[in-house]
């Protein structure tokens, strides 16, 4: 899982020479402007403003750290510029995978990342000192650099007026004051970017912002002589103050750095701390010189909000309230658009059904394609709402408070508050959740979080829960929401329990240290929140249009063939009796598969038709819904009356041989429990494989979750029967 930077031995970290070749390059590849800065500095907002919300999101080879690139809006016609957004970082001495990527891009250790033509460091003016710590490290690397002095409005509100001109003089690079969220200063920044990319101002000498003890400074000089490139001093300093930076240089340089550290230690210098202290001494002086501090308000808006949101009683109540509102909203607000979508698919099915003569083709198109895909797409409104909620929680800064509130609980199972964020994101989808684990510093804790994250009920389970609840749970919206909420709770409780087990057994380790910033609250920009919601929902739609469509077509064939006497291909097309159709499904390939696993699932109260659903949804959970739609439609024959009905209605009417309903309340709850716990998602398996760099962990995860699902479902069903349910 450790990053393996693609290092070319002996290559200078920054190729200053190639910058002079830029005019020749410009005709072929676009120039790359790199955007970097602390977390919560408004970097993403600025990125959106610079690229007009049209980003291409990908991954760095070998890791799932998001690689966000976009075309610079307003670049001159003959000078295409792309903007590369790097993950938020506090320092060039990385603690997490995310930060490692930033260092590797800026130190030119990633062969795939383009050479930065210009670096824009986003600096939060209201938190200048700590932001300058990282900014000064970047400036020392010697790239043409611009400081985007962001959130000057917030700074002024708390009584900090930063003099941009003075700051520019102190840092030796241009500073553009701005407010990225309102667009103020954006024009000036864009102008400056174009100007600098066109003709980078020559930088006389690269300044140093680190006041070091004389002995340390001498070691830096000695080591720097061994390194080529303009950033040799900065790199020597990083090498000397961070023993983990081993992959960074040639063997010779590494040994020299280790020897240097030893000499410093003998001289009584704390090489880990000295560089940090030296830098803070320097940036602290700059901050004081450029900031005119007036009296700010005694208590900021964030302070007042936090007083309530992190309050002993109110804080927990608000947290639970937010969760409850989220699920109620998803249930009630989504209903109308969902009904509309359902009607649309129904009408389309009827319309197309009339165009194609009855027969196999009509069945395939109407039942396999339109209704099958429709059964999944109908859930788009719910999924959009879920993504919107999670996005808003992230954008406002509440997510960090949730982690603060929940940390105690997380520490009880051996994880820390930061693991809570990936777990909460997993409510939308385990894939971004697993990707969010990249901010967790220790490998074992990251692995534990990855292993339990898919236990959180993701949006793909939502269709399954919704259909089952609608089909079989009596009572109004409150009972239904409560059932839904308990499924989510079950996932959470089991996830925490399993995390505890893993930390005690397989992945033993100390509870990690927590060092987490609580950023000020921000008003989320609706435009951006909606855009993100749409981007993520698009993935869901694309999946419905590709993977799920493919599975549906395949499944229709499997559920319709082979045909037996009486229902042969040659038989005249026309309505079949229900009995005939049932026999046909039973004898089909899908029916065979379902019956093959029936002994395994019969103790859980499931019949072989549900077995078909379970088998097919190992590709993706929401396939269950379309599978059941196809299975019951095929089973019911093709008389006009049945194929346009609501799936929940059809399911409610399914009877066993003894006349009892297939979907009793108990059987439905058992089925939901199974879906809460089983890892039925090919994409998650693939992401875990990529993240952990082995098949061992995804396989283990798949097996343990499968076993858990079976055991819990068994206990639910048999326990329920003992209590006289079912």
């Amino acid at each position, binding site marked *: 899982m450790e990053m393996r930077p693609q290092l070319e031995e002996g290559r200078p970290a920054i190729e200053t020479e190639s910058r002079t070749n830029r005019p020749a390059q410009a005709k072929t590849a676009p120039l790359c402007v790199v955007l970097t800065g602390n977390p919560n500095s408004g970097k993403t907002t600025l990125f959106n403003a610079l690229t007009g919300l049209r980003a291409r999101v990908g991954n760095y080879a070998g890791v799932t750290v998001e690689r966000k690139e976009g075309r610079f809006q307003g670049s001159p016609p003959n000078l295409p510029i792309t903007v590369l957004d790097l993950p938020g970082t506090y320092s060039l001495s990385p603690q997490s995978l995310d930060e490692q990527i930033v260092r590797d891009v800026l130190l030119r250790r990633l062969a795939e990342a383009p050479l930065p033509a210009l670096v824009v460091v986003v600096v939060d003016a*209201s*938190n200048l000192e700590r932001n300058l710590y990282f900014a000064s490290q970047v400036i020392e690397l010697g790239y043409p650099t611009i400081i985007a002095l962001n959130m000057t409005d917030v700074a002024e509100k708390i009584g900090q007026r930063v003099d941009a001109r003075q700051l520019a003089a102190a840092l030796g690079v241009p500073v553009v004051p701005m407010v990225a969220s309102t667009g103020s200063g954006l024009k000036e920044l864009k102008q400056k970017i174009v100007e600098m990319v066109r003709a980078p101002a020559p930088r006389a000498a690269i300044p140093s912002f680190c006041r070091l003890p004389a002995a340390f400074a001498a070691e830096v000089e000695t080591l720097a002589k061994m390194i080529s490139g303009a950033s040799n001093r900065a790199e020597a300093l990083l090498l000397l103050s961070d023993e983990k930076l081993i992959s960074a240089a040639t063997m010779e340089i590494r040994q020299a750095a280790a020897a240097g550290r030893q000499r410093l230690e003998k001289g009584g210098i704390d090489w880990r*701390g000295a560089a*940090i202290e030296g830098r*803070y001494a320097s940036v602290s002086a700059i901050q004081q010189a450029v900031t005119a501090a007036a009296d700010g308000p005694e208590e900021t808006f964030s302070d007042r909000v936090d007083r309530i949101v992190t309050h002993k009683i109110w804080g927990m109540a608000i947290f639970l309230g937010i969760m409850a509102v989220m699920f109620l909203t998803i249930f009630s607000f989504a209903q109308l658009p969902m009904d509309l979508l359902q009607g649309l698919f129904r009408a389309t099915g009827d319309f197309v059904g009339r165009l194609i003569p009855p027969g196999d083709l009509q069945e395939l198109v109407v039942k396999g394609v339109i209704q099958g895909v429709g059964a999944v797409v109908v859930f788009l409104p719910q999924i959009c709402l879920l993504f919107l909620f999670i996005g808003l929680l992230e954008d406002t800064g509440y997510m960090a408070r949730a982690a*603060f509130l929940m940390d105690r609980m997380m520490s009880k199972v051996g994880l820390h508050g930061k693991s809570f964020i990936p777990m909460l994101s997993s409510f939308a989808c385990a894939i971004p959740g697993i990707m969010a684990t990249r901010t967790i510093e220790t490998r074992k804790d990251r692995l534990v979080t990855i292993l339990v994250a898919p236990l959180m009920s993701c949006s793909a389970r939502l269709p399954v829960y919704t259909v089952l609840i609608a089909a079989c749970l009596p009572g109004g919206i409150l009972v239904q929401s409560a059932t839904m909420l308990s499924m989510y709770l079950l996932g959470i409780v089991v996830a925490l329990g399993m995390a505890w087990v893993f930390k005690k057994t397989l992945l033993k380790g100390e509870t990690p240290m927590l060092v987490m910033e609580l950023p000020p609250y921000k008003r989320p920009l609706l435009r951006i929140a909606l855009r993100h919601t749409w981007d993520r929902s698009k993935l869901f739609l694309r999946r419905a249009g590709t993977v799920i469509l493919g599975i549906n077509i395949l499944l229709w064939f499997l559920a319709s063939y082979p045909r037996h006497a009486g229902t042969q291909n040659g038989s005249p097309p026309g309505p079949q009796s229900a009995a005939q159709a049932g026999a046909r499904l039973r004898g089909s390939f899908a029916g065979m598969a379902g019956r093959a696993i029936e002994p395994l699932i019969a103790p859980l109260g499931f019949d072989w038709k549900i077995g078909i659903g379970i088998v097919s949804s190992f590709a993706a959970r929401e396939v269950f819904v379309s599978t059941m739609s196809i299975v019951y439609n095929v089973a019911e024959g093709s008389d006009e009356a049945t194929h346009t009905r609501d799936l929940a209605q059809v399911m409610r009417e399914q009877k066993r041989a003894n006349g009892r309903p297939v979907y009793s309340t108990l059987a439905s709850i058992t089925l939901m429990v199974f879906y809460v716990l089983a890892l039925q998602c090919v994409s998650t398996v693939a992401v875990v494989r990529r993240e952990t760099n082995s098949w061992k962990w995804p396989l283990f995860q798949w097996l343990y979750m499968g076993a858990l699902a079976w055991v819990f479902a068994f206990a639910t069903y048999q326990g329920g029967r003992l209590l006289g349910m079912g």
Partner: protein
Amino acid sequence: MSAETQPLTSLKIGAAATVSEIKLHPEHRGRLLEMGLLVGTQVQLVRFAPMGDPVEIKVRGYHLTLRRHDAEQIWVRSAD
């Protein structure tokens, strides 16, 4: 020595003090230092989380959370 030193966690809520010693192992305190919590830095204890842990502090103008267990290793000297 003008005032007694004490662990950060035993400050009163809302009280400010100056860091005098960080007793965490050098290998573990790197990030803490990089976040600006150094010997000589002013800190303010803001609050404890509802379940008593973690602790929220204010340092260099922003809010940071640490586990009580780690914060106990940070010794401070009151301003008075």
